[in-house]
C-alpha cells in the first residue's frame, strides 16, 4: 500500500487531509527520548513499592512474619492482606454475562488464601526501589498446600477439587446463545438431525500473554484528600470510576492520568491489583508511591489472553450448503474474574458464524476457574477465537465433502449485494465485498504460481512441502452501541466524547476521551479536525488521557477509537462550525443562510474574497466586543457519540507456508492480505496497525504459549521462555485494501486495530496443514513448534503438548486435554 496523495489542491476545493499518509506528530518525543512513561516520574519524597508474590498456586497462608523486612535498611512499612482486608474491597468485574454468574471476589492482596502463582501476599515500602526489593526475601511465609486445579476439562467434572471452596463448582457461568430461541435462526438440533454431512472438531486456543513492551507502572500522589494516579493504562476513565468505587475515594477527589503508554493490546484494559494497592498505601502513608513491575512479574501476574477449548460441529448438505453450526466452549477464567474476564468468550459468541449465511446456530460457553492468573482482553478478545474455529472447520468440511475450500466459502458467504445482512447471531453486517477482497488477495500473493510450485514439490517428494491457505474473516468493531452493551449485561456504555476548544490565537485544542498507546490519535484526529474546521494541521493539538482535562471518555479497546471517538470529534467540529457561523454572519452583516464555509473561511455566497476565517471568529468571540444578542460568547463545543451499530471490517488473508517434513520447521514463505476497514483516515497508520496485528496473530499460530506445569508454576515467565517473535522470525507482509464505508458513522470508518490479529492465525495454520495434509495430518495444535509439527507428521495426532520430558516445561506426564497444561492424568505425547 502506498501513500495516497491528492494531487489537486485549489482554493475552491481545499486539499483534504483525511486519506493522506501524514507522518505522525507523536513521533517527535518518541524518537528523541523526551517521553513521559509512568516509570520516568519522580516526585519529592516518593516511596517505592515491591510486592512479595505467592510461589504456590493454591494454598492457605498459615504464617506470615514481616519483621525481617521491617528491620531492613530504608524500609518504611510492610503491609499484608490483613492490613487492607477491611478497605480493599474486590477488584471489579464489569461484565456479569449471566444473572447467576458466580464471582468469587478478587482481593488485590491475598488475605488468607492464594489462588495463583504470583498473587500479592505482602507489599514492602522502601525509600528506594532496591531497598524495597531487597526486603522481599526477608519475609517469612508458610503455605499449607491446597489441591491445584489447572485442567478445565477436569475442573468441570463432579468431584473436582475447587479453586474457591466457598463456591459449589469451578464453573462461573454457563452462557447460551441459541439462534432459534433468539428468533434469528432455525432449530439447530433439527438442522443437525437432518444434515447429510456433519463434521466435529476440538480446537485448542492456547493461553497467550499480551506482553506490551512497557511494563506496567503506577504512581500515586496524595494531596490532602485528593489523589492523582499516573498509570500505564489503556483506560484512565474507567480506572478512575472503578478505583473510586473499590477504595471509597470519592470520584471527584481522584484524577487519573495515562501519560505516554507503551502498548496495551488489551493487556492494559484492566483495573490492576497494584493500582488499587498503590492508592491504599498512598492513602495510609500520605506519601507519593511508585510501583513498576519487572518483566517476570508482568508475564506472571498481568492478565493473560485466549485459553479456550472449542468443540465445534458443522452441518451441511452434500453440495456444500452449510445448514447449522454448534459451538461449545470451555473458557479458562483463571483464579478470579477481572474487568471483562467472563465477557471475552461471550463476545465471541456472535462471531462464530463469520461471513457465512448459516441458517441455524447454537453457542454455549462455560467459564471455568483454575489456579492460574486471570484471563481477559487480548487483541481481538473473543473474535480471534471464533474466527479461528469457523475458518478451520470450514476447511475440514471441505475435506469431508471433497470440495475446494475456496469454492465452499464462496458458496456460503454473504454476497456483496446482500448487505446490510442480518446474521444468524443477530448482528447486522454493514457493508463489504468478500469476493473482491479475495480476488485481490489472490493476485497480491501470486497464487497460481505458488500452487504450481506446491504441485512440483508434491510430485518430487520434496522434504520441504508448500501449503497455501486462507482465512476469510469479519469482526465486530467500534465498541459499541450502549443499548446493545446493556442488553449483554456489560457494566458501561459504549459512547465516546470529544470537545473542541477554539483558542484566541486561532489554535485548536481537541480533547478526546479515547486514550492512545501507540495508535496515533494525535495525528489522525488532527487530520480530521483540520478538514472539518479548515485550519492548518499544525494548529491542532490533541489532548487525552487525563481525567482532569478529558473529563468524559470510555478509552481505547475493541478497535473503537476512530469509529466512535473520531466520530465524536467530527460531531464536535460540526457544532463549532455551526456556532461560528452565527457569529460570522453577524460580523459580515449577512444572513447565516447566505454563508458558505470552505477552507476554514465563511463568505457570502456569490461574493468570493470577502469573508472571515474561523480562526478570526475565535479571536472575535474571545474579545466578545461584538456578537449577536442571546447567545453565549464561545464557539467551543463538545459532542458525545453513541453508535447505533457495530462496524464490520472484513478481509481475506492468504498465507504460503513451507513445512520441512524432516525437521518440522515451518516458515512463512509469503503473506498477503486485503482488508476492508472502511474509510481510511491515514493509510500509513492503517498499514502499521495491520502489520502489528499480523505479527501477533501469526505469533499465536507459530510461537507463543503460556505454559503452566503440574504445580501451577508458569514455566514461560521470562522472555527467554515466552517467545515473542523478533524481526528475523516474521515475514514481509503484502497488504492491501478495499473500501466499503461503514454505515454506522458519518466517516465510514470500520476499525483496524484487531483485524490483522484476528485473521492471520487461521490462515497460517490452514496453510501449514495444506502442506502436510497429504501425509495424513489433519490438525496441529498451536503454536506450530517444530517439535509438534514433526510429531504430527511422524506420529499422527495434533502434535500434543509442548511440555515433554527433559524440558523445563515438563511437569509430569503431558495431557492431550488442556491448553498448555501438563498433568499426571494423561499419557506423554498427547496424540488423540
Amino acid at each position, binding site marked *: 500500500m502506498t501513500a495516497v496523495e491528492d494531487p489537486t489542491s485549489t482554493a475552491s476545493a481545499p486539499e483534504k487531509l483525511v486519506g493522506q499518509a*501524514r*507522518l*505522525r*506528530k*507523536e*513521533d*517527535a*518525543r*518518541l*524518537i*528523541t*527520548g*523526551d*517521553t513521559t*512513561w509512568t*516509570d*520516568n516520574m519522580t516526585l519529592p519524597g516518593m516511596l517505592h513499592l515491591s510486592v512479595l508474590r505467592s510461589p504456590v498456586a493454591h494454598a492457605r497462608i498459615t504464617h506470615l512474619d514481616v519483621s525481617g523486612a521491617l528491620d531492613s535498611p530504608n524500609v518504611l512499612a510492610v503491609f499484608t492482606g490483613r492490613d487492607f482486608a477491611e478497605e480493599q474491597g474486590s477488584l471489579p468485574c464489569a461484565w456479569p454475562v449471566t444473572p447467576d454468574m458466580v464471582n468469587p471476589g478478587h482481593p488485590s492482596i491475598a488475605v488468607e488464601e492464594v489462588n495463583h502463582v504470583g498473587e500479592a501476599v505482602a507489599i514492602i515500602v522502601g525509600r528506594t526501589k*532496591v531497598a524495597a526489593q531487597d526486603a522481599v526475601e526477608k519475609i517469612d511465609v508458610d503455605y499449607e498446600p491446597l489441591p491445584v486445579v489447572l485442567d478445565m476439562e477436569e475442573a468441570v467434572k463432579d468431584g473436582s477439587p475447587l479453586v474457591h471452596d466457598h463456591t459449589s463448582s469451578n464453573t462461573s457461568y454457563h452462557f447460551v446463545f441459541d439462534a432459534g430461541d433468539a428468533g434469528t435462526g432455525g432449530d439447530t438440533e433439527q438442522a443437525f438431525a437432518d444434515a447429510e454431512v456433519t463434521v466435529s472438531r476440538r480446537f485448542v486456543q492456547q493461553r497467550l500473554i499480551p*506482553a*506490551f*513492551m*512497557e*511494563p506496567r507502572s503506577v504512581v500515586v500522589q496524595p494531596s490532602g484528600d485528593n489523589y492523582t494516579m499516573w498509570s500505564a493504562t489503556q483506560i484512565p476513565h474507567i480506572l478512575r470510576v472503578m478505583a473510586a468505587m473499590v477504595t471509597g475515594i470519592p470520584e471527584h477527589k481522584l484524577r487519573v492520568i495515562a501519560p*505516554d*503508554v*507503551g*502498548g496495551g*493490546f488489551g493487556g492494559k484494559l484492566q483495573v490492576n491489583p497494584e493500582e488499587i494497592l498503590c492508592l491504599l498505601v498512598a492513602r495510609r502513608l500520605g506519601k507519593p508511591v511508585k510501583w513498576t513491575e*519487572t*518483566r*517476570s512479574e508482568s508475564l506472571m501476574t498481568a492478565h493473560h489472553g485466549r485459553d479456550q477449548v472449542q468443540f465445534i460441529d458443522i452441518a451441511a448438505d452434500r453440495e456444500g450448503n452449510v445448514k447449522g453450526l454448534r459451538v461449545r466452549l470451555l473458557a479458562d477464567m483463571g483464579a478470579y474474574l477481572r474487568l471483562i474476564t467472563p465477557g471475552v468468550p461471550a463476545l465471541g459468541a456472535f462471531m462464530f458464524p463469520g461471513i457465512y449465511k448459516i441458517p441455524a446456530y447454537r453457542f454455549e460457553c462455560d467459564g471455568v476457574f483454575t489456579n492460574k492468573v486471570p484471563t481477559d482482553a487480548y487483541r481481538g478478545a473473543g473474535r480471534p477465537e471464533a474466527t479461528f474455529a469457523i475458518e478451520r472447520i470450514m476447511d475440514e468440511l471441505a475435506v469431508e465433502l471433497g470440495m475446494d475450500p475456496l469454492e465452499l466459502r464462496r458458496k456460503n458467504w454473504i454476497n456483496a449485494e446482500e448487505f446490510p445482512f442480518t446474521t444468524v447471531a443477530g448482528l447486522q453486517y454493514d457493508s463489504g465485498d468478500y469476493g473482491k477482497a479475495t480476488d485481490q488477495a489472490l493476485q497480491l500473493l501470486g497464487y497460481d504460481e505458488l500452487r504450481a510450485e506446491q504441485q512440483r514439490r508434491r510430485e518430487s517428494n520434496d522434504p520441504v512441502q508448500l501449503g497455501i491457505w486462507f482465512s476469510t474473516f469479519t469482526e465486530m468493531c467500534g465498541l459499541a452501541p450502549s443499548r446493545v452493551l446493556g442488553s449483554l449485561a456489560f457494566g458501561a456504555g459504549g459512547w465516546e466524547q470529544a470537545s473542541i476548544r477554539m483558542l484566541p490565537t486561532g489554535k485548536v485544542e481537541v480533547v478526546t476521551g479515547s486514550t492512545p*498507546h*501507540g*495508535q*496515533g490519535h494525535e495525528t489522525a484526529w488532527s487530520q480530521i479536525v483540520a478538514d472539518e474546521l479548515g485550519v492548518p*494541521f*499544525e494548529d491542532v493539538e490533541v489532548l487525552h488521557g487525563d481525567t482532569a482535562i478529558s473529563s468524559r471518555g470510555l478509552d481505547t479497546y475493541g478497535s473503537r477509537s476512530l469509529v466512535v471517538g473520531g466520530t465524536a470529534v467530527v460531531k464536535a467540529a460540526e457544532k463549532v462550525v455551526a456556532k461560528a457561523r452565527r457569529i460570522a454572519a453577524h460580523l459580515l452583516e449577512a444572513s447565516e443562510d447566505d454563508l458558505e464555509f470552505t477552507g476554514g473561511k465563511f463568505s457570502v455566497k456569490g461574493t468570493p474574497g470577502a469573508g472571515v476565517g474561523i480562526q478570526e471568529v475565535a479571536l472575535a468571540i474571545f474579545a466578545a466586543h461584538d456578537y449577536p444578542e442571546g447567545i453565549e460568547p464561545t464557539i467551543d463545543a463538545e459532542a458525545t457519540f453513541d453508535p447505533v451499530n457495530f462496524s464490520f471490517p472484513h478481509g481475506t488473508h492468504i498465507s504460503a507456508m513451507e513445512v520441512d517434513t524432516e525437521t518440522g520447521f515451518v516458515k512463512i514463505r509469503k503473506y498477503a492480505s486485503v482488508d476492508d476497514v472502511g474509510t481510511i483516515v491515514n493509510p*500509513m*497508520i492503517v*498499514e*502499521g*496497525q495491520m*502489520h*502489528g*496485528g*499480523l*505479527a*501477533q496473530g501469526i505469533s499465536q499460530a507459530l510461537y507463543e504459549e503460556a505454559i503452566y506445569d503440574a504445580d501451577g508454576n508458569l514455566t514461560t515467565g*521470562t*522472555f*527467554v521462555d515466552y517467545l*515473542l517473535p*523478533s*524481526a*528475523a522470525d*516474521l515475514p*514481509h*507482509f503484502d497488504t492491501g485494501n478495499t473500501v466499503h464505508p461503514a454505515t454506522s458513522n458519518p466517516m465510514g470508518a470500520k476499525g483496524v486495530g484487531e483485524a*490483522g490479529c484476528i485473521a492471520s492465525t487461521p490462515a497460517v495454520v490452514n496453510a501449514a496443514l495444506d502442506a502436510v495434509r497429504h501425509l495424513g495430518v489433519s490438525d496441529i495444535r498451536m503454536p506450530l513448534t517444530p517439535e509438534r509439527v514433526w510429531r504430527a507428521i511422524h506420529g499422527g495426532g495434533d502434535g500434543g503438548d509442548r511440555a515433554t520430558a527433559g524440558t523445563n516445561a515438563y511437569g509430569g506426564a503431558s495431557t492431550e486435554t488442556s491448553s498448555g497444561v501438563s498433568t499426571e492424568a494423561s499419557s506423554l505425547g498427547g496424540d488423540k
Partner: protein
Amino acid sequence: MTAAAHPCNEAEDTHVPQINVRVDGTSYTDDVEPRTLLVHYLRETLGKVGTVVGCDTSNCGACTVHLDGEAVKSCTVLAVQADGSAVTTIEGIADGKTLHPMQKAFHEMHGLQCGFCTPGMIMASIDLVGDIPEPSDHEVREGIEGNLCRCTGYQNIVKAVQQAAAEMRGAGTGSAPATHEAVAQA
C-alpha cells in the same frame, strides 16, 4: 568496553566505588553501588529516562545504548564497567536540533507506534549500519534480532533502517535533515 573491577571482587567490600563517565557529551562523577546496572544509573542517577527497561533477562533490547561506540544492552553492563567510558543514549544522537538520520527515518517510515522499543531499536540500528553500510532486508532482520517490538511487526523498521543507511552512506533520499520542530509539525 573499558575494563573495570569485576563486581564480585567488590562483594565483600563496603567501599562504594566512584566512576567517571561521559554520557551524551557531559562528564559525570558518581559513587555507585557495585551492583548498579548501567541502565539504572542512567535512568535513576542521571535522569536519562529516554533509555528504558523492558525486561529482566536481557532479551528485549529496549535499553540499548552505545558504550564507546558499540551498541550494548545497558541492563547487561554494570555502571562500574562504564567507568572511564563514553556512553551515548537516544538523547545524545541528534546534532543539536537536527535529528540523526536514523531518528528521521523511523519517523518517515513509520517505524514506531507506541515508541517504547524505539530508543533501543534506533541505537541498535545505528550500530548495525556502522557494521553493514548497505544492509539487505535479511541483514537488517538478523541484525536487530536482539530488539523486540510488539507493535510494528518490524516491516517498517526494516524500511527505516535501510533508508537511514542510504542517507548515512551519502546516498540519501535528498530530503532535508529534519529538526525536532519539523517532526512535531510534519
